[in-house]
């Protein structure tokens, strides 16, 4: 098991390796001779970007962590306009951020291949909503390729670049959590000479304002052209190597399985012991190639479409069948749930119902027994890490602002501040929305300082927004400008842990360095001052008292205050220390001093501290303590102290 970044660069065609879907896609991009890659991290897409960052220099690829998905999109798009092969990646909600450029530029097309990797998250393992990117594809008339396993994902990248170049059109490669974060056997292909020799590729932009300037006179031409292109692509996809018909040729029943659903359908059929069916495996859920569909439907008496989330394929198939006058039952979302992710169980249940047979095991019985179990299993939601600086920030904010304050927050690890005991997150909507929401709430409850009538001093509703460093640069900046410009009365605490922690410690403008070396660091406090914030301060949240006092002071100020709470991410720091073989202090409870007041548990909530119900005292799990010493500052009875022996 070599390092992933080594495997992705291996010049060993034919070698079989175990790769995560996202790693396989990175390899596919290299095999396709990619030149430019730009993205903003987002689970479940992040490992693709991290892998590209790790191999870029050795492969002659320009790679950047962009500040958000829209600028990443524009960076890659411009490279594709210049004749280079370019790629951007994002999670599903990231496409919403890039959507303005995406929808407007699609008609302009590209010169070099342009692939947009979008990772959906059905069941919302790490996301704020459950949207189906295939709908975006249909909306924008951009073809969507969807792999059923990691090896296919790698192969699809190459096909996607070819398809994009052939039609000078965008192509979406859509994954889901279960394809991006699934490992599978992947057979390595050939790497091009440019990649092997780390040859950086440069492009040429050919001016054409009638194409690249979207004034209405030009854009009016685009829409019919896009529609024409997508129908030509629909034709082309009849011969796409990722679409095929399998199973019994003269079967009377058929199942259509796009993307990853194909994997579940295969397992379900084997589990059910059913082989009297024909299967249409679809690697291109949009547009569905009608020629292949016609061949598949020939002789069938009924059809089931097993697809995850929205009925994207179902609607195309039904429309086609209606126009053809085909009068056979076509099932889909009546048997397959429209919410949450596809599973083998769901596929088995839908197919069994469709065929009028029983399931191989009694799922209802398992559910019934599990229902009983789930009542005695205590919940274990994710929590802020031990030594997480955000815990201290929230603790201090809550104490200083009081329980009546409103706490809009944002997207990042710190969203976990919503959970007890911290409960310092009242709203979270989308990247950067904390500041916009804080401003709106202030206008609604206090009025603007620019208005004749507004509430201030003791009358004002206290509003404290929290936002992470990467999120601040992502979409917090325009919202901050808006709040300062329109004179609201809010405190914004930027939880600056110097990395994009939630997605795996990627750098951002606050970190400064880029994968190529040192970029230029942009201190958040400088931005806030330059924008004209009424109060700006920087604190270290490991000093809880100082943080509390600064927040208290900031709350006295009328207008927009910005407090930067800066301390490096604990998970990142501990990882670095482990690698260097360094030790950190481990704290413990002096039993005689612990009164059992539970402040450390009920107000602070460090996961390393637990309650010993026998001794009625707090205890520290030494394997989980990361040595920040926050407990010492929180305990009113001085019951915590570092142990003699240190960790790791």
């Amino acid at each position, binding site marked *: 098991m070599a390092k992933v970044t080594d495997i992705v660069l291996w010049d060993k065609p034919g070698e079989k390796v175990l790769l995560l879907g996202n790693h396989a896609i990175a390899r596919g991009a290299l095999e396709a001779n990619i030149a430019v890659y730009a993205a903003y991290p987002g689970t479940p897409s992040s490992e693709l970007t991290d892998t590209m960052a790790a191999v870029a220099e050795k492969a002659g690829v320009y790679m950047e962590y962009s500040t958000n998905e829209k600028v990443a999109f524009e960076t890659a798009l411009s490279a594709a306009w210049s004749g280079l092969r370019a790629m951007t990646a994002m999670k599903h909600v990231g496409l919403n951020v890039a959507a303005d450029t995406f929808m407007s530029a699609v008609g302009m097309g590209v010169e070099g291949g342009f692939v947009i990797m979008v990772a959906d998250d059905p069941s919302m393992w790490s996301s704020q909503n459950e949207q189906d990117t295939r709908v975006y594809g249909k909306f924008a008339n951009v073809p969507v390729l969807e792999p059923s396993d990691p090896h296919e994902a790698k192969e699809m990248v190459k096909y996607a670049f070819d398809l994009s170049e052939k039609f000078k059109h965008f192509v979406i490669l859509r994954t889901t959590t279960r394809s991006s974060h699934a490992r599978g056997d992947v057979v390595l292909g050939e790497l091009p000479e440019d990649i092997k020799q780390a040859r950086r590729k440069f492009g040429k932009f050919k001016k054409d304002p009638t194409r690249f300037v979207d004034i209405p006179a030009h854009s009016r031409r685009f829409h019919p052209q896009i529609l024409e292109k997508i129908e030509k692509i629909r034709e082309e996809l009849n011969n796409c190597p990722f679409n095929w018909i399998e199973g019994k040729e003269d079967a009377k029943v058929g199942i259509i399985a796009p993307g990853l659903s194909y994997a579940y359908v295969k397992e379900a059929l084997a589990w059910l012991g059913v082989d009297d069916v024909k299967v249409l495996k679809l690697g291109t859920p949009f547009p569905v190639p009608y020629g292949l569909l016609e061949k598949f439907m020939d002789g069938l008496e009924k059809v089931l479409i097993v697809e995850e989330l929205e009925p994207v394929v179902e609607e195309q198939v039904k429309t086609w069948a209606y126009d053809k006058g085909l009068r056979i039952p076509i099932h889909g979302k009546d048997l397959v749930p429209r919410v949450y992710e596809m599973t083998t169980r769901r596929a088995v249940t839908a197919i069994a119902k469709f065929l009028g047979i029983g399931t191989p095991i009694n799922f209802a019985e398992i559910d019934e027994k599990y229902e009983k179990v789930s009542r005695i299993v205590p919940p274990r939601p994710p929590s802020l890490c031990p030594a997480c600086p955000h815990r201290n920030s929230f603790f201090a904010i809550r104490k200083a602002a009081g329980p009546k304050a409103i706490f809009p927050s944002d997207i990042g690890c710190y969203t976990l501040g919503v959970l007890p*005991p911290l409960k310092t997150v009242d709203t979270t909507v989308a990247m950067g929305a904390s500041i916009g929401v804080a401003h709106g709430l202030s206008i609604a409850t206090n009025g603007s300082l620019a208005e004749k009538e507004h509430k201030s001093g003791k009358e004002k509703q206290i509003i404290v927004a929290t936002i992470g460093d990467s999120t601040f640069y992502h979409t917090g900046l325009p919202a901050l400008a808006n709040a300062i410009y329109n004179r609201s009365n809010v405190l914004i605490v930027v939880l600056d842990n110097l990395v994009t922690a939630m997605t795996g410690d990627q750098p951002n403008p606050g970190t400064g360095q880029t994968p190529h070396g040192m970029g230029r660091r942009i201190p958040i406090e400088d931005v806030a001052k330059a924008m004209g914030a009424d109060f700006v301060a920087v604190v270290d949240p490991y000093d809880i008292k100082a943080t509390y006092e600064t927040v208290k002071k900031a709350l006295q100020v009328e207008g927009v205050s910005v407090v930067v709470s800066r301390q490096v991410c604990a998970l990142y720091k501990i990882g670095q220390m482990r690698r260097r073989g360094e030790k950190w202090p481990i704290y413990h409870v002096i039993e005689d001093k612990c009164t059992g007041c539970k402040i450390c548990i009920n107000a602070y909530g460090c996961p390393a501290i637990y309650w010993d119900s026998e001794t009625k005292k707090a205890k520290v799990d030494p394997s989980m303590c990361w040595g920040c010493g926050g407990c010492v500052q929180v305990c009113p009875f001085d019951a915590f102290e570092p142990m003699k022996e240190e960790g790791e």
Partner: protein
Amino acid sequence: MREYNIVITGVGGQGILTAANLLGWAALHAGHKVRVGEVHGMSQRFGSVIAYVRFGENVYGAMVPEGKADVILSFEPVEALRYINYLKKGGLVFTNARPIPPVQVSMGLATYPTLDEMKKIVEEDFGGKFMAFDAEKLALEAGNIVTTNVVLIGALSQTPGFPLSEEEIKEVIRISVPPKTIDVNMKAFELGVKAAKEMLRL
């Protein structure tokens, strides 16, 4: 072989994804078609974690279907129970015995079931076998608590019908861990093997 399904559970940060990846590579080296399913991102932060390792001809998706796990390998006792619906009849639950009480339990909002209660549920309601042992203690004995996952993998290798050989797994561990830690990891593996042999004799 048609399919072999392992569910690995525990608390974020315990090395669950590393264990899943090691087993996946061992299965690949043994010539199987492999799928490993994971969840990344915020859901990992000290919350409940599940990973799937599957291999065999009939394996396509990355998730083990409910009622089909041959083994649940759990890094923390109650996490085995949380995913007990994956266990097949006659399947085995192999768990580290040392509990990590969730914050809700410490706050007095929930209670933590005993090992005996867990055993009863696994055996009587789900028709499986339940075995708990202190893998953390063995990891410390080997020289580093971080090797708890290797202790558990060593134990797993001894379960009846387990399709990968000890040597296949050890080889992957040898080439995966930092060279300085090979001995500690090998010792952890052996202690897991020994513990499982003793338990399975009972």
